[in-house]
């Protein structure tokens, strides 16, 4: 850093900037400092009390559904080092010495010129006798979650004290640990801050339907030894509740002790008092996030914290961005239930406000509008059960857009007349689309004018929708609308022969039962083209026909459709020879078969290499030798590995519980089962699987299209991962499946992918382009929201039942073997293929 500073344009002396706290807001400030070149003037040191670097606390409950500290982390492990910021995790600040301008930790004293407090908040534990018993925990940090997980191991029941937002999150986490879960709330309804009594009642119904017991108006008097369980909670009416585990989530309090101790101004009910520049009563010290008290308010959401971080950056760099308060509107999905709250949702801050309410007790939806006395402006709104209109209402609210003549139409069911949604065209340029990164519609338009041509481009430049993700749908509609307005028309035709996407062609083939390419192009090809097709549509059609009917790809009608790799069932290399990859399911191979591979490679002078997918690749096979090579391999019990096809490649596995000390399931056995089930499935692109026998993940399953990780109770399924050019972590899709459930879920997932993806679209890209994302995918596959699962099951069963080894089929058919001749009129091999020797093997000269 010192060298960098000396050579930088800024000749001023480098100042020491210390940030206390490495939570979401503290980390955001670091990002702002890095992105805005502030490291030229500040040498930044960050102290984090926790041992982990900053992570996503908003999605903390996903820790129990398979995400780990690394995947929740907000940056790559080397981000701080690469950026030149010193991050000291696991080092708590114990004192701020304002006179010496130093912070003190148990490891030393550190001088500062400017100091930022981003210490956040801590969970409030009510002063109940017995609240410090073993197994009485809080829900705030990853370490808290580890403690909850450890305590849950010997528990069957769990109670969350507190029915607010975080309490319901915690309840979700306990459910994720398979505990019988109850929520105890002091108030007369759940989420008293966000919803009214009607909304709260609906919320209670829905949450109880999920098997979570809800106890309202209960004040816990004491916690003592239980009879059937570890603890007994005694309430004000002497009723009792027994449970093994208690999590307190009764609100948060600002972590302002350091500030109190050094004499900074503190609010009556806590919080470090800051002004619009986020400056505390000591101008050398700033405070941001949940520890900061601005205008008598603490902001317990991440978006206002980010806005404070931006104001702090501005203060540190003499800019003029200020913090002017923040909208606390919020859209949540708690235990799968939508809850939305906008502005003055209770209607108690605006005298004369009028309210509209809509309650559907059957569908369990509740919507409420708070409008100004003249009925023209939206002052607030409340949603329970369905957040579908949240985005529209938020735009009316935050942009002061005049309401329609019948405001109630905004919350009435869509089947009735006139339910106007506020189109993206109606939004003003100043409308905030993404509040996490403060991106307006105007910013998006500017990005498009600067050359962004799609959603991904806009996201890359503006970061919109990369925070909490709540604005994804709105962002897409704005981008689409603006692109259209600029005359950008995206032609989705697969090629000049068909005015259809791959998905549309798939539907045509399936619905009309078309079995050949010639029939397809005859009936549905473009009028003004010839009827040959091309190297785009023919392989795509071949793949679709194979997915639907699974006839051998070497049949006469299909041969001209295939790429050379599929035609000759081997992978063409740069000199016109082929590589041969027999299937080695799960990477398990007997010594006898290994010997056969060696003998064949030796006999036909093949270069041999172990692949990344736990198979053996034999290179340099001449076209005319392929049938002989395969006759020998098939005689030894091998079958084709489909390395040439857009189809299942390998199922990589670790050795699993059979040998490994740590394995909890037989991962090799499962890998072999899966590989044999899905081998031969033709798909839009290649598919790779991985199966790990325990959470150590030695099979790297989370980088595969389908990843499976063993648990004590069965299998966790991850989907849509990728290695290669654009690595992507697979996402957790379902947990603790038994073998049958696992097959069924993968069947449906794969068939839905085969049916709807574009040609040459891996699952990762398909997933990123899927409207509705992972949640939609889960609805389709796990909840059958489209009602197609029976059909997907049948289709997959057809593919499984009709599998045959294409090479076994080909070598028994002289007609098919005719193609494997170097020349139709001469037996000589191609004399221009020349090999040379390197490291004891042959390679192309």
């Amino acid at each position, binding site marked *: 850093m010192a060298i960098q500073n000396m050579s930088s344009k800024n000749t001023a002396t480098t100042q020491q900037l210390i940030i206390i706290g490495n939570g979401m807001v503290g980390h955001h400030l670091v990002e702002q400092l890095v992105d805005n070149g502030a490291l030229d003037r500040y040498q930044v040191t960050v102290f984090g009390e926790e041992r982990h670097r900053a992570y996503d606390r908003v999605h903390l409950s996903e820790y129990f559904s398979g995400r780990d500290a690394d995947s929740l982390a907000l940056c790559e492990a080397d981000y701080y080092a690469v950026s030149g910021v010193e991050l000291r995790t696991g080092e708590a600040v114990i004192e701020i010495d304002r006179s010496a301008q130093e912070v003190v930790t148990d490891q030393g004293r550190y001088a500062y010129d400017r100091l930022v407090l981003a210490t956040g908040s801590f969970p409030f534990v009510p002063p109940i006798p017995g609240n410090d018993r073993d197994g009485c925990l809080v829900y705030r940090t990853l370490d808290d979650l580890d403690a909850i997980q450890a305590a849950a191991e010997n528990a069957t029941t769990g109670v969350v004290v507190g029915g607010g937002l975080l309490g319901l999150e915690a309840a979700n986490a306990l459910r994720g640990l398979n505990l019988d879960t109850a929520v105890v709330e002091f108030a007369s309804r759940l989420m008293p801050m966000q919803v009214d009594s009607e909304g709260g009642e609906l919320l209670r119904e829905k949450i109880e339907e999920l098997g979570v017991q809800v106890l309202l108006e209960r004040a816990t008097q004491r916690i003592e030894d239980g009879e059937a369980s570890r603890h007994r909670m005694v309430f004000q009416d002497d009723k009792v509740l027994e449970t093994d585990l208690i999590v307190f989530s009764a609100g948060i309090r600002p972590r302002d002790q350091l500030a109190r101790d050094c004499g900074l101004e503190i609010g009556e009910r806590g919080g470090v008092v800051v002004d619009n520049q986020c400056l505390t009563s000591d101008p050398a010290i700033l405070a941001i996030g949940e520890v900061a008290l601005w205008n008598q308010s603490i902001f317990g959401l991440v978006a206002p914290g980010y806005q404070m971080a931006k104001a702090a950056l501005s203060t540190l760099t003499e800019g003029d961005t200020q913090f002017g308060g923040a909208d606390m509107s919020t859209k949540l999905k708690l235990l799968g239930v939508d809850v939305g709250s906008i502005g003055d949702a209770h209607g108690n801050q605006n005298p004369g406000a009028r309210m509209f309410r809509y309650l559907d007790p059957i569908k369990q939806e509740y919507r409420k509008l708070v409008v100004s006395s003249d009925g023209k402006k939206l002052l607030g709104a409340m949603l329970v059960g369905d957040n579908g209109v949240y985005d529209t209402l938020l735009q009316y609210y935050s942009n002061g857009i005049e309401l329609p003549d019948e405001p109630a139409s905004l919350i009435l069911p869509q089947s009735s007349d006139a339910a106007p949604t506020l189109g993206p065209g109606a939004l003003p340029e100043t409308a905030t689309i993404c509040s996490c990164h403060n991106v307006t519609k105007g910013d998006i338009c500017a990005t498009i004018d600067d050359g962004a041509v799609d959603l991904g481009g806009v996201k890359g430049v503006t970061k919109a929708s990369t925070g909490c993700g709540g604005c994804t749908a709105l962002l897409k509609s704005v981008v689409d609308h603006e692109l259209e307005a600029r005359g950008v028309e995206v032609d989705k035709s697969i090629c*000049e022969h068909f005015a259809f996407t791959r998905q549309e062609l798939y539907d045509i083939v399936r619905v009309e039962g078309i079995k050949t390419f010639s029939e397809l192009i005859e009936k549905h090809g473009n009028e003004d083209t010839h*009827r040959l097709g091309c*190297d785009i*549509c023919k392989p795509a059609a071949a793949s679709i026909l194979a997915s639907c009917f699974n006839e051998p790809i070497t049949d006469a009608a299909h041969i*001209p459709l295939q790429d050379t790799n599929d035609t000759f069932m081997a992978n063409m290399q740069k000199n*016109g020879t082929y590589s041969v990859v027999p299937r080695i399911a799960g990477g398990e191979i007997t010594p006898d078969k290994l010997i056969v591979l060696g003998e064949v490679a030796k006999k036909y002078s093949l270069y041999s290499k172990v692949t990344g997918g736990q198979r053996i690749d034999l290179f340099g096979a001449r076209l005319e030798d392929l049938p002989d090579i395969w006759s020998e391999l098939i005689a030894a019990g091998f079958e084709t590995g489909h390395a040439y096809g857009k189809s299942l490649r390998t199922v990589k596995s670790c050795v699993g519980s059979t040998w490994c000390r740590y394995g909890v399931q037989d991962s090799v056995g499962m890998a072999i089962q899966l590989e044999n089930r899905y081998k031969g499935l033709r798909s839009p692109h290649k598919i790779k699987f991985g199966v790990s026998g325990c959470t150590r993940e030695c099979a790297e399953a989370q980088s595969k299209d389908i990843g499976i990780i063993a648990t004590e109770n069965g299998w966790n399924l991850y989907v849509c991962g990728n290695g290669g050019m654009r690595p992507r972590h697979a996402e957790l899709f379902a947990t603790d499946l038994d073998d049958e459930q696992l097959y069924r879920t993968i069947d449906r997932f794969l068939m839905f992918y085969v049916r709807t993806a574009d040609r040459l679209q891996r699952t990762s890209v398909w997933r990123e382009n899927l409207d509705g994302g992972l949640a939609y995918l889960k609805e389709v596959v796990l909840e059958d929201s489209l009602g197609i699962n029976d059909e997907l099951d049948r289709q997959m069963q057809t593919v499984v039942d009709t599998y045959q080894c294409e090479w076994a089929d080909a070598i028994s058919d002289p007609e098919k073997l005719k193609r494997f*001749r170097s*020349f*139709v*009129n001469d037996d000589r091999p191609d004399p221009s293929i020349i090999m040379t020797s390197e490291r004891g093997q042959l390679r192309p000269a």
Partner: protein
Amino acid sequence: MTATAMKKEMDMADVQNSEASQNHASENNTAWQKVCTKDDLVAFSGVAAWLETGDGPAQVAIFYLPGPEKGKGDELFALDHHDPFSNANVIARGIVGDLKGAPVVASPIYKQHFRLEGGQCLEDENVKLRTWEIAFKGDEVWIEG
């Protein structure tokens, strides 16, 4: 096939291809030769053949596009089997299609397209594959080279 029969086929070919012959058979060292039969071909795709020509040996890619009705409007094309972009002999193993109305083959290695008629590369105007006259004589396939 007897020598007499062969001579007769050649005469027929000359008649059938009289127009083409004037353009292509102008050099003295070319002659029509039989390379294979219709059974050796793969409809809407290619096969490779070894050709001894007056200029030395050549590897030829033969493409066969059957007409819409049996035996009528069949088309044959003979192009260099050698792919100038990869220097491998693979053109016969490419996918046949049509682009902008003209039949083409896509090289299986780097996917450049070549017109079956004339051998012009669509991606690089400076590249053109050699072509040969080719015709059916009954069920036999004959090439002038």
